[in-house]
């Protein structure tokens, strides 16, 4: 597509944005994998449509406000990137575009409130815990609240898991040490599902991996990156650049969203003093499933047969292209049958703060995912991201068809420990 984007006047990522636009040949191959397009069936809510809208806004043919509602509805799931034969790097357009337009956008008071609440709490485990507790207290008043705030509350679990003991600084390998990694503890996950980190530590240890959990690490910054706050994201990322040691085999995470965020540090610090450091950091980041599949794992003992449906978290499958590794690990569990979910490339509707900002759409997308899961006859859903776990649980619950939804590491951990899955 021909364009006239004034690359020098649209911020530091002008070149990248223009390249993404230019590469789009308007073929529409990405449309069937876009959750908003399949739900709404209209061009402006498709990847091709959004690229065109952002292009027009950058060129000045449209105002930022004209394009805003449709750019806002994008989940950032990156299914379109996986589907695109032409190699359009949509993230390289969307992220800087959002960062650029964020400042100038008008938002209603409640939108601002919900957004601020989300941004000020989700990345901080302590605050999130507090908010979750008070949030539950507010639940009875939900029907008086605006939709976005109410949606935020509905995602909170009825009962928060008890705060487990804090993670150790190091967790030793069992038997002979085969590798040494640093773990990102994650933020929301520590409050909503602390057991995932413990399961991860045990699975890594069992396979001869020593884990260090560096002090001073914080949120990966991806939430801010994807809501358009580049500066905020960089502040958080800088902390991690400092905190993580360089003498480890990998920087490992079990939250797909954080993994994809940290793999983008090179882009985040583009043309900034930390660019090289960010790039080097990004190159060492691995999702835990990716790391373990590369390393090779021990087979768990035989356990009772179970059929599980594996859900590809967008931030793992599309943003990091990790689809085979978790499946490979799960197949090592004797008695476990792995089922595929139809329309597997579609997002579950979770995507960061999406539930809060687009509650109705998130619910519709979640329903579709739940229905597809129910068609598989699985007894359990397995996935690699806390956001998906929460969203899928809620979506299945709304259909009155609850089912266990676990992280890949939890399933492996249970298998190693001979627990019923």
């Amino acid at each position, binding site marked *: 597509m021909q364009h006239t984007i004034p690359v020098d006047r649209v911020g530091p990522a002008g070149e990248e944005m223009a390249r993404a636009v*230019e590469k789009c040949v*308007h073929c*529409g191959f990405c449309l069937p994998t876009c959750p908003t397009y399949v739900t709404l069936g209209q061009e402006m809510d498709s990847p091709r449509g959004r690229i065109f809208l952002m292009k027009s806004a950058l060129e000045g043919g449209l105002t930022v406000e004209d394009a805003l509602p449709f750019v806002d509805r994008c989940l950032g799931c990156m299914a379109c990137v996986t589907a695109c034969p032409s190699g359009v790097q949509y993230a390289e357009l969307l992220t800087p575009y959002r960062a650029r337009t964020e400042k100038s956008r008008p938002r209603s008071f409640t939108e601002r409130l919900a957004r601020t609440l989300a941004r000020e709490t989700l990345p901080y485990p302590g605050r999130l815990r507090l908010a979750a507790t008070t949030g539950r207290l507010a639940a009875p008043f939900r029907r008086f609240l605006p939709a976005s705030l109410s949606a935020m509350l509905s995602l909170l679990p009825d009962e928060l898991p008890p705060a487990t003991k804090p993670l150790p600084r190091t967790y030793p390998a069992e038997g002979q040490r085969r590798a040494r990694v640093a773990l990102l503890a994650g933020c929301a996950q520590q409050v909503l599902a602390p057991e995932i980190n413990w399961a991860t530590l045990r699975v890594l240890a069992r396979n001869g991996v020593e884990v260090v959990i560096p002090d001073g690490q914080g949120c990966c910054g991806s939430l801010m990156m994807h809501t358009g706050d580049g500066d905020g994201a960089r502040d958080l990322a800088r902390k991690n650049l400092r905190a993580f040691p360089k003498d480890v085999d990998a920087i490992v995470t079990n939250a797909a969203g954080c993994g994809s965020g940290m793999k983008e540090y090179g882009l985040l610090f583009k043309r900034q003093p930390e660019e090289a450091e960010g790039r080097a950091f990004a190159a060492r980041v691995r999702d835990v499933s990716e790391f373990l599949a590369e390393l090779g794992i021990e087979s768990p003992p035989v356990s009772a047969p179970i059929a599980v449906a594996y859900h590809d978290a967008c931030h793992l499958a599309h943003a990091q292209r990790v689809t085979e590794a978790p499946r490979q690990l799960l197949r090592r569990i004797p008695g476990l049958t792995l089922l595929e979910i139809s329309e597997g490339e579609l997002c579950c509707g979770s995507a960061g703060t999406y539930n809060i900002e687009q509650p109705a759409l998130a619910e519709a997308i979640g329903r579709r995912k739940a229905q597809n899961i129910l068609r598989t006859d699985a007894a359990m859903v397995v996935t690699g991201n806390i956001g998906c776990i929460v969203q899928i649980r809620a979506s299945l619950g709304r259909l009155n068809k609850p089912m266990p939804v676990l992280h890949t590491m939890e399933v492996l951990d249970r298998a190693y420990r001979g627990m019923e899955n």
Partner: protein
Amino acid sequence: MNPHPLIESLAGIYPEGRLLIHPGELASFESDGLTSYRTRPAAVVIAETQGEVIETVTLCHQHGVPFVARGSGTSLSGGSVPVKDGIVIALNRLTRIVRLDLTERIAVVEPGVINLDVSKASAASGLYYAPDPSSQQICTIGGNVAFNSGGAHCLKYGMTSNHVLALKAVLPDGEVVQLGSESVEGVGPDLVGLFVGSEGLFGIALEITLRLLPRPEQYQTVLAAYHSLEAAGNAVASVVASGLLPGAIEIMDRLAIQAAEAAVHPNYPKGAEAVLIVELEGEAEQVAEEYKRLEVVIRDSGAYEVRLAQDEADRQRIWKGRKSAFSAVGRLSPDFIVQDGVVPRSRLGETLAEIKRLSQQYNIRVANVFHAGDGNLHPLILYDGREAGAHERAEKLAGEIIRLCIRLGGSITGEHGVGLEKRGYLPEMYGEADVDLMWKLRCAMDPKQIANRGKMFPSGASDGPQAARATGLHPLEREGIISRE
């Protein structure tokens, strides 16, 4: 023409959110798969029912405002580009499969149903919908009907028109008609055949009755690599001459292979100037028998490497490479034109050599990927639109290729339609009397010429007086009594 009174009436049909009039809502509908044409419509309606479509068309007729039906907007000839100040009727929410009769092997679908979804819906019973455009995961049955779309496997099974048994359509004046019947043996003229391929000029298809076929028991997919494109082209003629009728015969040249490799890693033979994909299909015994014959033909055709798909995954990989090729070329060049023309397949080798010569003469890269079995060429003309004059030169080259097709006794389009892009060439392919007849038909069906106005027929106004004189204008037009803009 002032479309606004119409928009007021449309507001009576469509709730907010489904009648789009703001620039941000309209912009993304400006073009289809051929982005060099762009027009912003006055409004877009997102229809959800057939009734809404009928009412909209009726209102457009009353107000004399042109409308364009839109499926997934993957047309490569500007077919779904809006008409200025006209209405776009988006059909993507009309996605009901009204009836799936597995014993009669038919599917009755609404126009917004995606091609591949018909096969998915009938897969459990071992049936499928045969026409398989490369865009099958997104293009709609409505769009397929309008363009009589084809695909790799149409060599054996025919184009869309061979698979549409009946149609319910709203004509441009709002009348609803039922054409054809569920049986292949109809009575009277083939009105379905008239509608299929009419490029949206005869109205909008609302319900389409499709023929389903049993999925072949066995596929045998052969990949042969050649040191020259001409050799691959000649191999096609030999395969056909041997009396074999494979399901598909496709060719990709070096540039197309390079693009596909970068996009989806199909792992085609290294160093090939061209690959030939031949797929045999049918009952296992017959396929085995045919393969023996095919092997000999391919061996004698000068292929330097021949490979067989090892399993279904391998076969899918081969096809994914082929079907991604158009879009994948975006990796090689910022801009390109997808040309679509036909030559008799006995003249493929000669045609390809001439395209190569033209490419060198213009100093413009041309990638070739095509349905070789049908002689349906798709030269992809690569250029950089930021270079002054590059687009014009690329268009000129595209034009020379099309004229070459006409000269060799072929056609200006195999499957992508005439649309906006090729309307100037229609009179070069057909005599004046033929174009006149087509125009009369058009006027009979659509006296106000509101359905997809400006498409298919050469337009005096926009092609300049020169072109207008050279093209077959209707006598009334020449007299200035009617006009098409």
